[in-house]
């Protein structure tokens, strides 16, 4: 919302001593963010004169048309200038910048030789003067509009300060000069004159029968004013001052009738719509579109109507998309002489829906969906009649009204509530005074408040508290720490997530955070199937390329790896921790209980249950060499063992026990993927990525990855340590020959089982696969220790043999002798 200072001054007594910056600070203080203070004309100096075009000499030997123009600037002699624009004729009045003038952009005007002529000034466009973006050509005025030789800076009211203000959705009233002026006055404690006051007594003579107005559906609008005017001369022009104000507000002057509707909307906040009465068949009714299919709005767009669209219709067809945009068929044209002017207080939600369904946010809909002062249907339409009849030959014929304004209810509050919420004492008397300052009637005895007509948002004690605080100034609120609990801590889950991330980061992984979106072709190329491939679809994705929610973290890591590789990185490890969105759960229809009280516990549980469980994973991707290669020499590449080791480290960090099984799971290599199992549940997978994926995504060969379902990990149990023995350990090595299909993990488990409970540790220290015959040799170091005695050689040998006996029984292991 823009607000020119010159216009504000009409309603607020702003002393010259108050600077634009002070006004801006005042607006900010009461909750209106001033995004920009535009000082129009500050970079413009005259002389800038109105001049009459006396002669035009077309110069044609250049690439573009050039005119050598003779001007009467009221100087008694003809001034000649070169001009590149062609949208004017002899007899027109234009704006001429004379030598010595400086236009915005530090563009100095002087007498100069150009195109073989001497040019003594410049004919200006609105854009060159910095007063509009319109650069269709130079500004042209009619004979009777301006005086030759007059100062254009003054007549065009160029010198002005324009505040560009952000208005919050609860303050629709401030989408008007009236509303902003009231806030300026309130904030700076200045005198305010409500422009509506002068309209309250305005009466127009009924000279005939007006177009009828009817609200077809009571809930769609409260009051409908329809004023009929006739005898309008369509050649009437918008006065310069009005046109300039409309331009300063960022809109364009179109025609007198349309300009007056816009002017009144900008001044008071009530959108108006003018119909060409000649195009109306019968009367106007506000009703739903129903079965009507198509409607062409005045921007020329044919729109497909929704049956629920609220329309303003005549007896035959819709004429306007209510409160949003008028229709092409009944718009004001160059031949319009009779006018029907509509001013309605529509239901806010109806207009919001109209606007949303057609993705059409207009100046009108923006105001109406935020609520407009219901009294304005009458006064704004009166203002229209006042202005149009004053500036044209138009005459009021009749005014028809349906419905009546509905105002916000009276509210009774406890004034002590205000102090209780704000944290400092505001006496009841002051509360009443401040509420009166914003337009409320306050009965101090009962503290019953009648909010002003333009404040439909003031309904509760909290609403009035904000108003009081706003008027006192939020800067007066003291700074006090609240009472707080003595203790809080992260939950075990939060601590665990943080520890895992810190461990990986301190071991060379860089953490990444990717957008959790994916697509079907990624899911397919990863080889995900069944439940692991099913997910949720975003109805309105950022990009049709990524409409699905991710089902796994590895694809995102691959994308980041590709980006880093494309930027020159070769050897690195990255990880991500975050949610995944597999959809085993079908979404149920929304559960939307009443909001006035806490829903039943059963309903709350259903709402919680309706939200699908979202897994929380950590995954890592390791590409290239395990170390940086430097003067110390070559480094080996990451391999499947590294990925499994990191996955195991995550489980070890969480103090869990696990077993390892071979797995064939996407996106891993079917022969090089380990599954880590905790309490019988697979919680992690790790190994080499499937070679097909590695090739498809251009990763270094044999890149490896792991993924751990953190949400599937059980909580760590309280540690109950065994006493550390001080007796000497006995170390035994055994080498076993088995079929190469026997896994080292299984063989080790067999040894452990046979060795008994004095086995302290077992370590695979050698693996030899060159003995042929499909056999492999696996050599283990077994460490035995008794808590209370030194083990004898016989005891140790017996335990070793017991261990190998189980290995032999289970896997046919043969003890290898030297």
């Amino acid at each position, binding site marked *: 919302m823009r607000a020119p200072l010159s216009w504000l001054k009409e309603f607020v007594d702003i002393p010259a001593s108050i600077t634009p910056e002070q006004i801006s600070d005042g607006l900010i203080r*009461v909750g209106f963010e001033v995004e920009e203070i535009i000082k129009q004309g500050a970079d413009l100096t005259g002389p800038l004169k109105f001049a009459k075009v006396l002669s035009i000499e077309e110069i044609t030997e250049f690439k573009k048309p050039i005119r050598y123009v003779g001007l009467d600037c009221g100087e008694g002699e003809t001034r000649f200038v070169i001009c590149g624009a062609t949208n004017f004729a002899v007899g027109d009045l234009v704006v001429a910048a004379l030598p010595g003038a400086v236009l915005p952009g530090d563009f100095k005007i002087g007498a100069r030789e150009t195109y073989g002529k001497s040019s003594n000034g410049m004919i200006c466009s609105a854009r060159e003067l910095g007063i509009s973006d319109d650069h269709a050509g130079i500004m042209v005025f009619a004979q009777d509009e301006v005086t030759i030789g007059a100062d254009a800076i003054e007549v065009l009211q160029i010198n002005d300060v324009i505040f560009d203000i952000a208005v919050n*959705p609860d303050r629709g009233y401030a989408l008007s000069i009236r509303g902003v002026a009231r806030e300026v006055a309130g904030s700076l404690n200045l005198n305010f004159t409500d422009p509506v006051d002068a309209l309250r007594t305005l009466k127009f003579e009924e000279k005939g029968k007006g177009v009828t107005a009817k609200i077809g559906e009571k809930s769609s609008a409260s009051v409908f004013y329809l004023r009929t005017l006739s005898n309008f001369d369509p050649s009437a022009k918008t006065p310069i001052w009005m046109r300039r104000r409309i331009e300063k507000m960022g809109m364009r002057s179109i025609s007198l009738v349309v300009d007056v509707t816009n002017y009144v909307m900008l001044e008071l906040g009530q959108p108006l719509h003018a119909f060409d009465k000649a195009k109306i068949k019968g009367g106007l009714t506000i009703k739903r579109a129903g079965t009507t299919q198509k409607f062409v709005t005045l921007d020329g767009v044919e729109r497909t109507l929704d049956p629920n669209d609220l329309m303003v219709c005549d007896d035959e067809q819709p004429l306007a998309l209510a409160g949003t945009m008028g229709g092409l068929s009944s718009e004001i044209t160059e031949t319009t002489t009779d006018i029907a002017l509509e001013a309605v207080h529509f239901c806010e939600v109806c207009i919001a829906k109209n606007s949303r369904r057609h993705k059409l946010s207009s100046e009108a809909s923006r105001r109406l969906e935020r609520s407009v002062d219901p009294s304005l249907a009458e006064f704004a339409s009166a203002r229209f009649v006042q202005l149009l009849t004053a500036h044209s030959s138009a005459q009021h014929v009749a005014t028809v009204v349906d419905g009546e304004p509905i105002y916000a209810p009276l509210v009774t509050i406890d004034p002590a509530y205000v102090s209780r919420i704000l944290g400092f004492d505001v006496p009841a008397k002051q509360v009443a005074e401040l509420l009166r300052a914003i337009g409320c009637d306050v009965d101090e005895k009962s503290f019953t408040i009648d909010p002003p007509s333009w404040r439909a948002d003031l309904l509760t004690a909290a*609403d009035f508290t904000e108003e009081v605080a706003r008027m006192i100034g939020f800067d007066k609120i003291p700074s006090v720490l*609240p*009472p707080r609990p003595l203790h809080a801590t992260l939950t075990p889950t*939060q601590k665990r997530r943080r520890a895992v991330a810190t461990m990986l980061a301190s071991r060379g992984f860089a953490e990444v955070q990717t957008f959790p979106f994916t697509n079907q072709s990624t899911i397919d190329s990863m080889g995900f199937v069944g439940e692991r491939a099913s997910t949720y679809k975003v109805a309105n994705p950022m990009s049709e390329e990524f409409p699905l929610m991710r089902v796994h973290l590895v694809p995102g890591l691959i994308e980041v790896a590709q980006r880093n590789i494309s930027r020159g990185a070769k050897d690195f490890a990255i990880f991500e921790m975050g949610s995944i969105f597999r959809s085993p759960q079908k979404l149920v229809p929304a559960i939307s209980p009443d909001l006035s009280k806490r829903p039943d516990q059963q309903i709350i549980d259903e709402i919680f249950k309706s939200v699908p469980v979202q897994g929380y994973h950590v995954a890592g991707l390791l590409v290239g060499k395990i170390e940086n290669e430097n003067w110390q020499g070559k480094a080996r590449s990451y391999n499947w063992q590294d990925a499994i080791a990191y996955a195991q480290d995550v489980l070890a960090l969480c103090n869990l026990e696990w077993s390892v099984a071979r797995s064939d799971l996407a996106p891993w290599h079917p022969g090089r993927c380990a599954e880590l199992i905790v309490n019988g549940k697979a919680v992690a997978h790790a190994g080499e990525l499937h070679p097909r994926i590695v090739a498809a995504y251009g990763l270094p060969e044999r890149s490896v990855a792991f993924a751990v379902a953190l949400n599937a990990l059980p909580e760590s149990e309280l540690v109950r340590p065994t006493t550390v023995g001080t007796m000497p350990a006995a170390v035994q090595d055994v080498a076993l020959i088995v079929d190469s299909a026997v896994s080292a993990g299984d063989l080790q488990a067999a040894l452990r089982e046979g060795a008994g409970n004095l086995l302290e540790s077992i370590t695979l220290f050698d693996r030899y696969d060159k003995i042929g015959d499909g056999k492999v040799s696996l050599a283990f170091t077994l460490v035995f220790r008794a808590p209370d005695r030194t083990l004898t050689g016989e005891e140790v040998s017996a335990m070793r043999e017991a261990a190998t006996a189980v290995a032999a029984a289970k896997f046919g292991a043969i003890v290898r002798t030297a």
Partner: protein
Amino acid sequence: MRVEEISTWVEDARKAFASASDLDSLKAARLAHAGDKSPIALASRGLGSLSPEDKASFGKLIGDAKAAIADALAQATAILEAERDHKVLLEEVVDISLPVNRSHRGGLHPISIIKNEVSDFFIEQGFAVEEGPELESGWLNFDALNIPADHPARTMQDTFFIEPLESGMVLRTHTSPVQIRTMLTQQPPIYVVCPGRTFRADELDATHSPVFHQVEGLVIDKGITMAHLKGTLDNFARHMFGPDVTTRLRPSFFPFTEPSAEVDIYFNNRWIEWGGCGMVNPKVLATCGIDTDVYGGFAFGMGLERTLMVRHGITDMHDIVEGDLRFTRQFGVGL
């Protein structure tokens, strides 16, 4: 055997040891002056043939002399061994400036770091850290927060909706549904912060991302005032931006708070919008079954990306979301 001779042997030995230039020449000197055939050894062996009186007097003299020679030898040995060791160590000098660490440099994502930092600060203040799902019920994300369908406030936040639309499921547009979940499942007093990932359909550019992070705070207790909100924000701002930062509350609008305010910070010589805040709207408390006659509260929320960008002088959001290792590694683990 004369007394003078004995003192000469001691003197000779001392000289010889002192003049030895290395351990080898010291060894030769030791054999000559303290070895089996040295004068003092011969004299010692000759003691047996002396009279008992002479044996006693010369015995003491020779014993003292032997001790003196041994002492001199020990001293000389210590010096020469130290010289030898020093020489060896000098030969073993390396260039310790050579690059020695071959391991990859890791790091936490800066958003994780700032999230941890904010969480730790509030944990110290007695606030618990609550989290919730990213794919969230529309009732929890909007309705329960007093954002009715078709209210302009809903269009303030460009929402990602999940199919089927009848499910009302959305990608949460703020972490506020975590506040609702907390109020529906816990009894006051409630002191929580809710950090997390949020979504709005904004194009990715230098200052916006469709996927971003917020931290919100919620306090519900008896006698909570807007002064408590201001105090908490002041404290939080000083923690994040240093002791000199000042905050400013500006009236604003959020459906879930009333009064509502924007919180600005004065940092690096300018006012910067930091977040939103306000007193929890009694309508929201009522929906959550909190007795508004007894309890009141405040809430606030900030963007973590914005906080990070302002504090660290980051000018391009792309750096935060792209996952370039060169960017992330600069932050270490946030210590």
